[in-house]
């Protein structure tokens, strides 16, 4: 890399248009694919795209889907996802995707067109205050007002998106800046002036953590999406650390795959729909090690009853995540991979012996909780249980041994996917955790499939969520992306229906999916294959047919309409007040009035 911000060469300094400078900057930041939708303000960039081959453009059918596709691409590869949309409605349509990426810490650079600089503020056609609108929707955003700043800003956007806690960055590009000549500068080799997040953990804090952990009688490791974001090596280190210590490990929704699901030390997911053993272990532990998770309300339940007797160690790359919801005893700021490497090294060096006997007692307790078999369900008769559909999907994909990526929409099916699909490795599970965006799964799967053309990519969906971005079936057809959409069709917005059953006296206000399309015909109209399964005996054949088909498929699986997602920590309840399904205890307790106000 050449010195900082000098033009690449004086000769070509002003031979490139702004649009060409943008594309060159993308290329120099390793972009291979961009998800986008054209419009008036970004026509210069589309013209430049037309005249080059280095960057492939994927034309989506809605700008929200462009961002979700870039998220799927980013999460399955560890690279920055890149989006290109036009001004005004192009930018506003992208906002949901941007907030989704912000909440789940996904690195995205989103280029938005803007009206020319002299028209900004004039309520011009397709003008929106994009930087104003996206300020709280992004990690950072830029409006480029001078050609001289253009290349630097694009480079900086990539740096900001992927450094520290990753997130989405918007670069708003007025049309005149794209048309006028602009100087190109190489990505800077110098440090950013103000944004330099800490990645190396403090050695003293690591020592304090290890001392607590060595003396722990009832320890637990609680790992989240930060471990995934830190790269596959961090997941390997997490696994090494957990096996080395003999501690139980639980993952958040975002962290699934960071620790192998089939490992005996894995307690499953924790939180509102987490396992009985994970939540009770969190409640009863005496030392908790949180790595790359943020004590989200879906995880903690009622805060004043959350893990009341434990010393808490929290490692996070974002200092604002520490002591935000839950006060902790040892705070470690740093990259999850670096933290884990430091913990392993310090654990080996620390003289104090570990009391294996007390750990055995703790495991005995955990095994008792485990014996509840909280995810048990009974599949009998002709009607397919949704849990069974996910479980069979998992077992069949496992048996086939193909590399498999799972995305989901949002709702009951998402929780069943998290509970019954065993994730053995990181970056193979994409779900909208923080924002809970219905319509995330299909476009996200598109992005995954673009990055992994030969892999099996399945969107586990609900019949309501899938309709929120169903137009992307067109994108699948255009690019021959063999994404499989596996719909658990219970004809309800299932999670809404479940809450109405448990909290609102069974008054199913507007939660019935009336007037559903014929998903088989819908698939066919988009040049895809449609499969409908209604009988339990046909489930396996349907799944196999879906996987075997070389192109995109919608498999519409009719499942039990009134099935609820259990176990569940009701709103406003503590971990040890979780409710199990009928299989475990028969009948469901009510929710307190304070709980009802919570989401």
């Amino acid at each position, binding site marked *: 890399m050449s010195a900082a911000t000098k033009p690449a060469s004086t000769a070509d300094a002003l031979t490139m248009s702004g649009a060409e400078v943008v594309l060159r900057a993308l290329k120099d930041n390793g972009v291979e694919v961009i998800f986008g939708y054209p419009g008036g303000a970004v026509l210069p960039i589309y013209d430049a795209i037309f005249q080059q081959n280095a960057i492939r453009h994927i034309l989506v059918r809605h700008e929200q889907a462009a961002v979700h596709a870039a998220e799927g691409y980013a999460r399955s590869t560890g690279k920055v996802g890149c989006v290109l949309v036009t001004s005004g409605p192009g930018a506003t349509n992208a906002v949901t995707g941007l907030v989704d990426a912000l909440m789940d810490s996904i690195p995205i650079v989103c280029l938005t067109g803007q009206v020319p600089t002299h028209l900004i503020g004039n309520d011009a056609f397709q003008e929106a205050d994009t*930087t*104003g609108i996206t*300020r*709280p929707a992004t*990690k*950072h*955003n830029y*409006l480029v*007002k001078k050609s001289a700043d253009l290349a630097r800003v694009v480079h900086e956007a990539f740096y*900001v998106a992927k450094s*520290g*806690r990753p997130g989405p960055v918007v670069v708003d590009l007025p049309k005149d800046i794209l048309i006028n000549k602009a100087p190109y500068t190489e990505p800077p080799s110098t440090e950013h*002036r*103000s*944004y330099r*997040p800490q990645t190396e953990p403090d050695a003293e804090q690591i020592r304090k953590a290890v001392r607590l952990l060595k003396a722990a009688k009832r320890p637990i490791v609680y790992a989240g999406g930060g471990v995934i974001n830190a790269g596959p090596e961090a997941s390997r280190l997490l696994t090494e650390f957990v096996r080395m210590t003999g501690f139980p490990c639980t993952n958040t929704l975002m962290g699934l795959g960071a620790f192998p699901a089939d490992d005996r030390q894995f307690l499953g997911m924790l939180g509102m729909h987490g396992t009985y053993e994970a939540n009770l272990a969190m409640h009863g532990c005496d030392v908790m090690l949180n790595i790359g998770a943020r004590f989200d309300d879906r995880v903690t339940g009622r805060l004043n009853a959350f893990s009341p007797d434990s010393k808490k160690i929290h490692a996070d790359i*974002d*200092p*604002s995540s*520490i*002591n*935000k919801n839950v*006060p902790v005893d040892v705070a470690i700021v740093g990259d999850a991979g670096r933290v884990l490497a430091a913990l392993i090294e310090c654990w080996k060096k620390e003289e104090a012996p570990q009391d294996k006997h007390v750990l055995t007692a703790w495991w005995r307790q955990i095994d008792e909780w485990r014996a509840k078999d909280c995810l048990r369900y009974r599949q009998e008769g002709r009607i397919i249980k949704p849990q069974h559909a996910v479980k069979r999907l998992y077992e069949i994909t496992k048996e086939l041994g193909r590399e498999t990526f799972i995305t989901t929409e949002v709702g009951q099916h998402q929780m069943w996917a998290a509970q019954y699909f065993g994730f053995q490795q990181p970056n193979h599970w994409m779900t909208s955790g923080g924002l809970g965006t219905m319509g995330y799964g299909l476009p996200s799967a598109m992005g995954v499939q673009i990055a992994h053309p030969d892999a099996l990519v399945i969107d586990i969906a609900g019949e309501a969520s899938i309709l929120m971005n169903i137009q992307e079936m067109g994108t699948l057809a255009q690019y021959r992306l063999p994404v499989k959409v596996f719909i658990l069709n219970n004809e309800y917005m299932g999670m809404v229906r479940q809450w109405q059953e448990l909290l609102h006296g069974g008054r199913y206000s507007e939660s019935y999916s009336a007037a559903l399309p014929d998903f088989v015909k819908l698939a066919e109209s988009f040049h895809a294959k449609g499969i409908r399964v209604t009988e339990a005996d046909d489930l396996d054949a349907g799944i196999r047919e879906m996987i075997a088909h070389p192109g995109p498929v919608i498999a519409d699986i009719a499942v039990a309409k009134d099935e609820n997602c259990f176990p569940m920590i009701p709103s406003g309840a503590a971990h040890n007040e979780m409710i199990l399904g009928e299989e475990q205890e028969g009948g469901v307790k009510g929710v307190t009035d304070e709980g009802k106000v919570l989401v």
Partner: protein
Amino acid sequence: MSENGNAQRAATIAVLVENEAGVLARVIGLFSGRGYNIDSLTVAPVDETGRISRITVVTSGTEMVIEQIKAQLDRLVPVHKVSDLTLEGPHLTRELALIKVVGKGENRVEALRLADAFRARVVDATTGSFVFEMTGAAEKIDAFCALMRPIGLAEVSRTGAVAIARGPRGLI
């Protein structure tokens, strides 16, 4: 955490930021978006090139909330440094106010007498009005305004607090 985790305290926080478009909106948006209080906020460029601005924000909350505010400010991309002056030791806080008093006769005399006692300067005078300039702690300006109210207080313009740590240590 301390036993009295719910006790509120005031905090005067100094923030050094890149002087770029939208940076103030980011800071203010952070406070409104996350439901923090702003008791006062001032901003101006403070280095010779005009690239760095200093924001002084006076806020209040529990210790946990104030720690959050500082961490949230610090992770904004254009923020260079966040300093909790209240926590870090002795510091000076000053505010500047321009205060217009309208009146005749004895009230004018009384206004000047009070201004003298408060070390407020007359910066504009007509036969029916004065504009006083004063600097000091917010409480002093409050007290001056309260005394002027019955005499003919017509208008007040205040800057909000600016603050700096005592002693030789600099923030940059």
